């Protein structure tokens, strides 16, 4: 299969968020899309506490030829997709660098410390300012609220971000590739709503 040359090889992508946001599902859909195109993909996931309010991270290594470590080395991420805004900052501090790009959902999920008033949650303006300071390029979309308004379920925020990722042209992703992957992993009656989420994500990139 002809594979488009990647911007970096391996291309190091992190999907981060909070348990329950569909982080693992997003990483597997993206990984499968790229694997089907002939890329060698390695995904490292931490999901023991994924439903239990903890921070969750998936590391994707995308290469034309080789398998890599399921953990990206510190400071070596090329793209960070954050399903939760403050998680973007947390991950940048460990894996960021001056050239990293960030695609960020703007809907906060408060930690129990914030709920209980022990900790403050920063304003969206501040988060955007910091992400911009720490990255070469960034995109912010309110995927969760759009998913709740349009699809009546916040979980589709993760698929919207995958659509938005395709829109950034950072990786050689196609709508057909997404449709093929999602058709294999979902019951037929769920494909349509996932396609809507994907298309909405691309549209929201602005």
């Amino acid at each position: 299969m002809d594979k488009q040359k990647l911007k970096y090889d391996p291309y190091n992508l992190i999907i981060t968020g909070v348990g329950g946001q569909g982080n693992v599902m997003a990483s597997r859909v993206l990984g499968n899309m790229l694997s089907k195109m002939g890329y060698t993909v390695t995904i490292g996931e931490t999901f023991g506490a994924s439903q239990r309010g903890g921070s969750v991270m998936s590391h994707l290594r995308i290469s034309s030829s080789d398998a890599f470590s399921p953990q990206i080395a510190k400071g070596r991420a090329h793209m960070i997709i954050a399903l939760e805004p403050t998680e973007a900052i947390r991950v940048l501090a460990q894996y960021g660098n001056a050239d990293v790009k960030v695609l960020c959902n703007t809907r906060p999920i408060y930690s129990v410390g914030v709920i209980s008033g022990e900790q403050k949650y920063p304003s969206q303006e501040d988060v955007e300012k910091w992400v911009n300071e720490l990255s070469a390029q960034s995109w912010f979309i309110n995927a969760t609220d759009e998913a709740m308004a349009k699809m009546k379920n916040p979980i589709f925020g993760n698929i919207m971000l995958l659509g938005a990722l395709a829109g950034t042209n950072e990786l050689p992703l196609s709508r057909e590739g997404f449709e093929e992957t999602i058709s294999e992993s979902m019951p037929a009656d769920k494909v349509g709503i996932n396609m809507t989420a994907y298309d909405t994500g691309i549209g929201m990139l602005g």
Partner: protein
Amino acid sequence: MTNIAEHDKNARHLLMGNEAIARGALEAGVAVAAGYPGTPSSEIIENLASVSGKRDLYVEWSTNEKVAMEVAAAASFAELRTMCVLKQNGVNVASDFFLHLAGSGTRGGMVIIPCEDPGALSSINEGDSRHFSRMLEVPLIEPGDFQEAKDMTKWAFELSEELRCPVMLRSVTRLSHASGNVVFGDLPEVDHKARFQHDGFILDPDTGIMCSAPVDYRHGLQQEKIKKAEEIFETSPFNTYTGPEKPELLVITSSACNLYTREAVLLLGAEDKVGILKLGTTWPLPPKLLEKHLAMTDKIMIVEEVIPFLEENVKILAAELAGTIGPKTFYGKRDGSIPSTNELNPDLVVAPIATVLGMTYEGVPAAYTEKALPLAFFNAPSRDLTFCPGCPHRASFWNIHNVLSLDNRNGFVCGDIGCYSMAMLPTGFSTLRTMHAMGSGTGIASGFGQLGRFGMDQPVMAVSGDSTFFHSVMPALVNAVHHKADITLVVLDNGGTAMTGFQSHPGLEIDAQGGDAKKLDIRKICESMDILVRESDPFDFEKTQQQMFDLMEIKEGVKVLILKQACALSPEKKHTKKFEMKVVEDACRGENCGCNRLCTRIFRCPGLVWDAEKGTSKIDDAICTGCGVCADVCPVGAIDRKEVA
């Protein structure tokens, strides 16, 4: 996602390590698989169960790991290929039988698959089962990537049949729960026929009895098998060397550390200086292979996680070979080059290699860290683990915490293993005061329950999940009843093995394969031991707390309170809302209420948040699951629940 029973040979898929292991077992024609759920191992049995109908397989979630290994062994004795899957501490549970199984030997290929958790990402220990292979004298093999996870699993069955002993294949979280590309091999035609031959000559391995005695004879046989394994391992294709003929540094590694080491060498650009000996067969070590590679250089680094198992075994060989290979300088855990706790990653491997080679390596650029680290530290709120919104455990521990506080005799709860272990944390009101192995809560409580004679006057409580109850609480409960220990056991029955993904257990009508199973009733089991049993819904605060008080009033003997409410993630509840919740803003008195923000400060359900602007609490509709419990937490009734039509 991927159909692991697909016939297409050479199909290439992105597989989780656990899926790759399951596929390898199918390619080996496995007939029986048994295990007990435990992260990061559970998906192996789940995947096999999902294709059991197509592949003529028997798959079960056994009551505990020891029983799982016994169930799997029976199939081996009947000349079928069989496997037992467990997490690291599950090997401890099964180890008594494992010792005897190693002594009796096996017939059909039998593979024991521990999936371990260096760094304790989803455990409260980072136990390392590799020592069991040396201690019990069974061969140990460890895949170094995803393709090997499949290929070595298939080979493990063949190896077991060749040696006639169980083979341990060890995985870790970063393989089991990571994913990589795997090319499929052939799936055999399966037509399993089971027969246990037992009436031949007593010592005949094919037709005699299966037993570890006579010990002197069988133990000798076992050691011959290990010698034979050593020879087989000398030429195993799963032991590979990458690097120059005369490296400056030789790294010996295995498992996920193989991937970290490869990456570390690439990051340093030190491919011409460092050789990597990746071992797939880690016990017994093949001496000639080691001799050849140890002779390449004087500097040897061993990269492995947790205990210096590989390091010690390599050093024993190096001592024996000293006459031919000469003195070596070793880098590893003993000299502090590699951390002795927690999991490794590429950065932790780069650093010591760079030091030995006199190179420098910068991870995150210093200027970037200076800017990013304080921003993250002060602004990304820490995310303590918490019970899910709608979780029955939050309600159960709210009841227990309040009852123990009101009782005011400094009572405490002995914890056990499951999601409810998190009741050590503020999400469970820091209620649990001891926490050890599966079943230990009731065992420890049974001991505390005897200490009244020495003046201890605190009420003793234990908690247990429904799956844990069957796994190992039952013997402890028998002990407590028999010895008239003064304890109250609260069974948190949420209808499944919830923490690991809702696997079946003996209290349910369904088995791992989705078939009908005989349901055992916890209440009837307890009552058959003449235990006083009460039952309640933990969402009903008044009834639950009254029952708890009543049971604690009874001073002597074992009392059991069963709190029944399904897990919020259970298939019947997930994505459904019983109530539409709303905070009535006018009624919530906010900071001025005498409750001091009881709902958000103490009860802390993620679905109920503090609105600092309005000075009231509010429901987060994206998170709330509509369980309705918080309505009873608010002392002024400001949280409204409306039944969803």
